[in-house]
């Protein structure tokens, strides 16, 4: 039972354009959502998060949108840079533990 789903395994965008990474969840008990970025041979690093009481959180080039009714969140990166190329994991918290999606590989073309 996959409670956090990232249905697209990969995304390729041109440098300077917007990257939109999507995530869906099924458990209505999740109340906090996080995005992590992972480079090869490194552990995941925290990127941005959002509480279920909000619908948007912005930090520089990164914005996360939450649609609770649709149980959907998305990460927007604008403008995209080649250094953003990595695997991005969506994670959801119910206060006890984090549940992760499978990740999406973002490639930003120069």
């Amino acid at each position, binding site marked *: 039972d996959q409670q956090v789903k990232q249905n697209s395994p990969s995304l390729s965008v041109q440098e300077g354009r917007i990257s939109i990474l999507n995530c869906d969840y099924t458990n209505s008990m999740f109340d906090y959502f996080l995005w*992590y970025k992972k480079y090869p041979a490194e552990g995941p690093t*925290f990127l941005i998060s959002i509480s279920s009481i909000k619908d948007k959180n912005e930090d520089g080039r990164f914005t996360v949108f939450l649609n609770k009714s649709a149980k959907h969140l998305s990460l927007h990166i604008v403008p995209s840079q080649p250094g953003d190329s990595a695997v991005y994991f969506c994670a959801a918290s119910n206060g006890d533990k984090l549940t992760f999606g499978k990740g999406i590989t973002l490639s930003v073309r120069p």
Partner: protein
Amino acid sequence: SAVISQKPSRDICQRGTSLTIQCQVDSQVTMMFWYRQQPGQSLTLIATANQGSEATYESGFVIDKFPISRPNLTFSTLTVSNMSPEDSSIYLCSVWEDLTEAFFGQGTRLTVV
């Protein structure tokens, strides 16, 4: 933010043997977790490492296979016992601060041959 040192960073092991992975945090943390990431899969929680008591295991993971120690608030070990090729994965230590942000070690890439 917590700094986590995890070792070894990688290892190649013979089937039937055991490997112990260490996780050291630069500050005292209450919640410490062990994850596994199999090829092409998400990060799957193995267990919560509880200080001073037995670890809490997720469905599909058992203490005999993945014994965990947590002797204090800055250190934990995960042992992968009686290894088989199916145990080849990346194992990650993670700590939580204020339940809203988790930090990860760099991971241990295990290959069982």
